[in-house]
């Protein structure tokens, strides 16, 4: 298991160092700095030197590094590093050099709690906040008062939720956020298109509510004979994953999603689908190299969704060769400019109405080059957000809340589709 955990800044200075096992010394920290941080060509997130393995994850301007001398579970170590980042964000808003330095004593306290002898323990920020807090006075009082409650919380079956939550108004917000990934070949064929969806929930519900959640999941609806006629409007989910709170056994047996939610915001589920994807944008690039000194661009982009909807923050990044001297271009909407640092033309359209189409025409002038290596033509990539639209066609059918006090609750749903890896080769 994990023998030591270090957090470095970009210069390679150690901000946090905690050893959990005697098989390593503090001085090992220097080895990572030399081998990874000062190395410009790092080709793996795991490096093994002798029998010591270094796992690292980069976040903001930090390196989170876990060490082991064992044939440890690599997935567990990386997931734990991600979790350290999440707990840090939940505590400090942002997890970067500044916040680590400003809270290093607290971080040591947390690290003593979430890792015991290198074994990850309860790492739910919500529970941790009950007894490890920024204001030490408060934490002490809390501990004296209900330490038993805390320990049961930290080891219990619903370690993610405290039992004494109270709201005057009981509300739940559901956000369905889809990232569409697209890879379009030079010939305009879809090489791959899939959707990675996330269902985020913000639960402001009193007591210990039992929730049931329903989607237009094809497998579920086809099982139910009453729903046969509606099956045209269903989505085939390739795979999904759930938050710790969802009863997996229940989903496995009858595909119902039931859970006791944590308080506040959390990711209820993630899903993946590749069937019948509605691509929100089509891009038709025509890029021609004219001799050795000029490249001509004609990029047409068309919105495929309903004209009642709008996309926001649409950005197309159109690569140019490394030896581009300058670009002249004109667009029928938005603004386009050449960004030399990124070797690309960045075309921004703040608001893009459904069914409309816009065009960019431009020319890049090239300087003469001595070496003759051809331009690798990286793909055009796209960024956007479309509200109230899901590429997969996924819909939330219901969210039911059962609580022993039987209160009324208000539920809200919102949909958004954004670009994941939306790439068009040309």
């Amino acid at each position, binding site marked *: 298991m994990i023998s030591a955990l270090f957090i470095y800044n970009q210069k390679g200075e150690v*901000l946090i160092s905690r050893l959990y096992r005697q098989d390593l010394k503090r001085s090992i920290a220097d080895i990572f700095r030399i081998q990874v941080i000062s190395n410009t060509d790092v080709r793996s997130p795991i490096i093994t030197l002798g029998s010591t393995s270094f796992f690292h994850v980069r976040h903001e301007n930090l390196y989170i590094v876990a060490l082991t001398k064992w044939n440890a579970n690599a997935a567990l170590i990386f997931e734990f590093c991600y979790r350290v980042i999440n707990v840090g964000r939940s505590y400090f808003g942002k997890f970067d050099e500044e916040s680590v330095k400003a809270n290093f004593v607290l971080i040591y306290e947390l690290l003593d709690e979430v890792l015991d002898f290198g074994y990850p323990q309860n790492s739910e920020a919500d529970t941790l906040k009950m007894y490890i807090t920024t204001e030490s006075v408060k934490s002490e009082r809390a501990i004296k008062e209900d330490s038993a409650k805390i320990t*049961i919380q930290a080891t219990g079956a619903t370690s993610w939720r405290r039992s004494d939550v109270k709201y005057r108004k009981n509300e739940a917000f559901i956000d369905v956020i889809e990232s569409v990934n697209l890879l379009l070949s030079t010939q305009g064929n879809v090489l791959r298109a899939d959707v990675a969806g996330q269902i985020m929930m913000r639960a402001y519900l009193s007591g210990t509510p039992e929730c049931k959640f329903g989607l237009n999941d094809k497998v579920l609806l086809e099982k139910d004979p009453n729903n046969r006629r509606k099956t045209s409007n269903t989505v085939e989910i390739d795979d999904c994953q759930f938050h710790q709170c969802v009863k997996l056994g229940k989903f496995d047996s009858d595909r119902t999603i039931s859970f006791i939610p944590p308080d506040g915001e959390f990711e209820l589920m993630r899903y993946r689908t590749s069937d019948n994807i509605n691509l929100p944008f089509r891009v038709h690039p025509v890029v021609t190299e004219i001799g050795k000194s000029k490249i001509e661009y004609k990029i047409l982009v068309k919105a495929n969704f309903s004209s009642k909807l709008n996309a926001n923050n649409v950005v197309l990044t159109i690569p140019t060769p490394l030896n581009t001297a300058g670009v002249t271009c004109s667009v029928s909407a938005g603004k386009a400019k050449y960004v030399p640092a990124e070797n690309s033309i960045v075309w921004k359209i703040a608001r893009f109405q459904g069914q409309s189409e816009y065009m960019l025409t431009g020319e890049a002038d090239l300087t003469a080059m001595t070496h003759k290596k051809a331009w690798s033509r990286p793909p055009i990539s796209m960024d956007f957000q479309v509200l109230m639209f899901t590429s997969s066609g996924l819909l939330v059918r219901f969210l039911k809340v059962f609580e022993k006090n039987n209160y009324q609750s208000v539920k809200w749903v919102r949909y958004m589709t954004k670009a994941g890896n939306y790439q068009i080769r040309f």
Partner: protein
Amino acid sequence: MSDAKFFQRGKIQELRIELNSDKKDRGYTRKKATLKKIVANMTMGNDMSSLYPDVIACMAIPVLEVKKMVYLFLINYAKGKPEMALEAISTFRRDVEDPNPLIRALAIRTMGYIHVDKVTACLIQPLRHCMRDQDPYVRKTAAVCVAKLFMQDRHLVENAGFIDQLREMLVDSNPSVVANAVAALTEISERSDHIQLKLNMAVASKLVTALNECSEWGQTYILESLMFVVPQEPGDAEMLAERIAPRLQHANSAVVLTAVKVIVYLMNYMSKDEDISNMCKKLSPPLVTLLSSGPEVQYVGLRNILLVIQKHPEILKNDIKIFFCKYNDPIYVKMAKLEIMFRLANEHNVEQVLSELKEYATEVDVDFVRKAVRSIGRLAVKIESTAQRCVEALLELIQTKVNYVVQESIVVIKDIFRKYPNQYESIIGVLCENLDNLDEPEAKAAMIWIIGQYADRIENSDELLDDFLYTFLEETVEVQLALLTATVKLFIKRPTAGQDLVPKVLKWATEEVDNPDLRDRGYIYWRLLSTDVAAAKAVVLSEKPHISTETDNMDPVLLEELLLHIASLSAIYHKAPTTFIPHCKPRFLIPSPALRRQNYGPGRLMHSDSYSSVHSNSSDHHQQLSGSSQPQSSSSQLDPLDEFMASSTPAKEPHHQRLSYHEQSFDQVAEASIGNREYYDQKINAENPYRTDTTSTSGTKSGGGDDLMSFDL
């Protein structure tokens, strides 16, 4: 209030004065600030250990934050100053009796980190109490503490009966306690010489029930421990797998991959093919989902997928598109995807795969481009129907004149020529245009092989070889061997063109070069040519053994072992853990009435057998190579290990007489390293078929000298 200001180098003396100052200190804010400075300095790697007495003195302060900092200090420095740690014992003693469970747990946890014998001695009694504490938080901390203690003093833990107490905790009412007890037992079992964790179905079943209520990490520990269940009946394996399957939907990839490991393991004990294929269907989607995690987890997932699909090819067989590389994937993800793409390529999707590979071959990263080019060549060898298009793609790439692309292409084209003789010779002309740019030994050797092989069709083959020979003595052995053989081929095919070159090369190879392989090969050619040219022709130009990409398959024994380590480091490196983790217990499939026969033949299930089976196979390998007459008979792109395994898979009847002869000479060389697998790998790589036939004569240098004299063209 920000603590960042404490992050500066502090002088020991000043810190000491600050700690001991008797100024009014309400709420101990001053002391806290000083301790924070000390912790910051500890972090920066400055030695603070000399402040020991002063810091210990702070233990009496009734503020939790102070206590935690003092404990941190103790954990860091106690080992170097054991006498000081003793001063802390009284505080620890008081704390383990504290009414607050968090304080009790903190004391136990911290004492476990302090590796000082006297502290350890004081820990035993309270630890025993804590394992039965009424509070689950204390119990779960105590469980891990047993593992800590075990690392310090194994005998103490065994003699004090802690192992039995841990075992009792497996049925604790609290899932976190169960999970930590399981984790501690698993680790102790992995490290101990005589404690081996074995779970029967009853315990396993209880553990699986606890899964539902555990934290995600706890689930991972429990799943990990299920690897120590040996199902005695197929029904047990099926039932267990069925109950674990819901974990595949967990958001934490550690839970998912560990569940995959257990299920793949249990499949070995299932009887019905239908059950296995049902399970395989369940495994595909979660494996794909791993690719939407962070890049590091994707990488872990990809390396493991590569293992799983080798054992169960039906998994993911229709999901190749998922593995197409994104332009901005990190390089380690791209490389891992490429390997899976190649493996999943088949008649139906090869078109798409090829166009992807062509795309990758124009990218920036040199290693990635090389691997893409290589994959195009391997694809041609793997799937015959696509060979023509692959060759065209390679020709296009050669036209780009990018040096490393050209060299890589030539290496794979050689393999294509080997696989499909007399089909693509028309492209030799294009290849010859690039001779001057070859600077890598592998590419040179490949080109030389092509020239030698087609010496009679390339008009100026003698000139080309002569050019290469110009630097013969400076070349690597790989190139020298290729040159030697190519020249002999030239001579046999076109005696007049080769007659000036052959004596030159043979003289160099036998007299100027130190490498025994090269020298021996030189001698055998020499003797062949001088005694019987017809025989020489038969040997040198004989038909070459068939090559195929089957040779890419991993050694099935290793694969089987790695599958028992899914998700771990060794599964990422594709190396047995025993090769890089000291004192690591090997894992193997434990026989039971339910264990399926493995497809690589009986009698090799046990890990302990694998070395000996490799050993005996190595003689088969010799046998086979000696039968072939082509020095470069192996496809150059392949890993020596793969190649070696491939040639040893066919269960041919070994040639007994020769076998013993080879083994003998082999063992003589090996002596010290018999049984060492790595040794054989290297050896076989360096081996050439002529070598063994001449081992006895080449020892006598004078014999060779005689031949040299009598050789006459």
